[in-house]
């Protein structure tokens, strides 16, 4: 995993990561060009117009040509920005933040952030998320999933470490239980705040297998720095095996827990 990172941008691991990187590089090249041209002129002025014997300042005679000339940098910057934002940028922004894949064509999950963990809720084969209720939240049920709801029977809830299959987009419904968090996977070049009281859709399509760090980028309290999850991108087969294996383990544990609860009740 450390190999994903370096002194520059992390590796590109999503379909839009390359577009993002081209945008970053384009903007930075233009910034450097503007700064260097400007800096050269600045340095020239500092030397050329230094105070020295025999050199006097020139009282300017206002000419319209001069004044108009000062607008040249403005016009260039404005034209560049208009092109950057409207022609180049808006389609990319719309692609990332406005046009979501259909839930049935994607790995549709719900992520509920909390201090200081990521709860990932899979709807299971029926594609329906079971009902959740804040009053049902406890240490074994971090999102308050209602076991009585039939839609929740095939659901799976995992904390922090979760898997997704390669080859189709992930559609995340993002929310939070307590304070604002922010969903950030550097390799995917995606970031979105998780806001309590709101369900915000985010999508990303991974292009590489492997494990990626999911970190919180909005200050969320004392454990902000250690609120780390891991997204594991598997082949579809590996993903299915992981999902089914984990589902089975959880069900067995639930049965055991239920049996233990019954045994513990003396009046039965």
């Amino acid at each position, binding site marked *: 995993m450390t190999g*994903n*990172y370096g*002194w520059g*941008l992390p590796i590109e691991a999503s379909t839009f990561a390359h577009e*993002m990187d081209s945008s*970053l590089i384009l*903007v930075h090249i*233009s*910034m450097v060009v*503007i*700064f260097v041209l400007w800096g050269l*002129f600045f340095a020239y*002025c500092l030397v050329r*117009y*230094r*105070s020295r014997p025999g050199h*006097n*300042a*020139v*009282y300017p005679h206002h000419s319209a040509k001069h004044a108009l000339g*000062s*607008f040249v*940098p*403005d016009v260039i*910057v*404005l034209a560049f*920005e*208009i092109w950057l934002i409207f022609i180049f*940028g*808006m389609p*990319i*922004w719309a692609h*990332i*933040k*406005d046009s979501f894949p259909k839930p049935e064509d994607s790995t549709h999950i719900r992520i509920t952030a*909390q*201090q200081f963990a990521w709860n990932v809720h899979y709807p299971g084969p029926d594609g329906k998320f079971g009902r959740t209720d*804040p009053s049902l939240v406890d240490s074994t049920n971090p999102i308050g999933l209602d076991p009585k709801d039939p839609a929740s029977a095939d659901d799976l809830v995992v904390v922090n470490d979760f898997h997704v299959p390669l080859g189709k987009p992930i559609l995340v419904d993002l929310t939070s*239980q*307590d*304070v*604002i968090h*922010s969903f*950030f996977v550097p390799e995917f*070049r995606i*970031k*979105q*705040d998780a*806001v*309590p*009281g*709101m369900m915000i859709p985010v999508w990303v399509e991974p292009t590489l297998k492997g494990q990626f*760090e999911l*970190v919180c980028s909005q*200050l*969320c309290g004392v454990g*902000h*720095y*250690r609120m*780390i999850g891991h997204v594991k991108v598997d082949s579809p087969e590996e993903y299915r095996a992981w999902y089914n294996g984990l589902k089975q383990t959880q069900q067995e544990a639930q049965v055991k827990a239920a049996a233990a609860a019954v045994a513990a009740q003396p009046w039965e």
Partner: protein
Amino acid sequence: MNSTHHEPTFVQRYIFSLDHKVIGLQYMITSMIFLLVGFSFMLIMRWQLAFPGHPIPVIGHWLPGWIAPGGVLVPDAYNMLGAMHGTIMIFLGVVPLGVGAFGNYVLPLQIGAPDMAFPRLNMMSYWVYFMGGIVMLGSFLCPGGPAQSGWTSYAPLSVIAGSGQTVWIIGMIFLITSSLFGSINFLVTAINMRAPGLTWFRLPVFVWAQVVTAILLLIAFPVLEAGSILQLLDRVAGTSFFIPAGLIIDGVPMTRAGGGSVLLWQHLFWFLAHPEVYVLILPAMGIVAEILANGTRKPLFGYKEIVGSMIFIGLLSFFVWAHHMFLSGMKSSLAKGFTTTTMIISVPSVAILTCLILSLMGGSIRYRSPMLYALGFLPMFGIGGLTGLPLGFTVTDIYLHDTYYVIGHFHYVVVTGSLIALMGGVVYWFPKFYGRRMNECWNKIHFWLTIIFMNGIFFPMFIQGIAGVQRRLYDPTIQLHNVIVQPTNIFMSASALCLMLTQSIFVVNFFYSMFKGEKTEENPWQATTLEWACPSPPPHGNFTSLPTVYRGPYEYSVPGRSTDWWPQNASN
């Protein structure tokens, strides 16, 4: 002025003074102390960032146990120091220095007024600010420590935080009130008390900057005051302005009516805090304009363009706030509107910078110390402005938002930009304050070391931001993607320590020169504006006779005259 008055006592003259100059100097000394306090908080945090989990050397064992048990900073304390660093630097340091100190001292002098319009309100403004500062620092005595939800205090984190946050809000209400008193006073003074002949377009750029700043403070701050009171009610009265239903805090469902909006706080906060950015930068631009005209010995290029751009910036600054919120969950089409307004506001900023640099052309540049700070401002503010581009551009902001790139960007604007210019202002007007000048050689040494170390701190932040390092992390090395660029943190922390040591040059120079500096005449920089037409330091009431203004503010090197400066008040 009023001969029936008895001789003022020490307390009346230096503590509860009604004189705008004393109040300005009170603001100056207080805000510089707060700048050092805010900076020292950051030094503690920077040690933790460079060497996570290692005991802080030297001072570690003097810190109380709840901040650094065994000398190692704890995560709570890191968040507290971070929140207080931001709050102190902005609201108690840079704004009071740029507006309270320079505005108070220089604005009445530059318009030829004997004092501010409302001297008592002016005194109250300072003392309310001072109280706000005491309340902010006093929040360290709260059980659980001071505010720890960042200077932005995003709800619901701030609503569920400990009692320090309540004290933070009360402190903010003091500071906001003080700013409102100040801004009303500045506006009334600038509108009503200009010397005869001093028309609006003969005003120095600095006065314009203060007028626009005062309007921004007057309109933007009440919104934050209202927001702060709503947050206070959420905290102490159990209301739900910023709290939605169904929150589960620490595994316990919150018993509140809910129905509030988390994003509402962000809208209210940034509606102030974006204009606030221009409150931080406009006075600095005004100072740079004054020093540049004086140091190049020629009129500023495009005086009207600069003034018009400042007014335009002031107006537009109310329509860009949500560019801090592209990823907050607000409607993504709103982002398109705000990225457009953000693009438009860059135009007047570029215009001002262009005019300032074109002012160098045809000049005869005297490289004296105030000029170094003013010239240093130009490229540094340039970097700050340019790095705003990928943040205001929605696409790249998705990656860079809430990373160190943002921190680098605004520190280039506020520290290497504003603060450098404000230091230049101190050096430039010091002879007016005390009738003596600061040591030129030490000023130059201070300037160069400061610029070098500031860049040493802030430039690596862009490298970190590109690598994806998020802000506000107590221990960045826990996350794998931060590990490779970790050496930059050691470099930045070393630069920060050196920057702190460098400031001692300035502090010693400041206080030594106050008493022992080389004595100067009334107008040591051979400047044209009115503040140099009164004695140094000016007596109570400022001018021996009220000046009349005959011409624009920067009549340098006018052909056919024996001297290369032509004061605004000289009748021939």
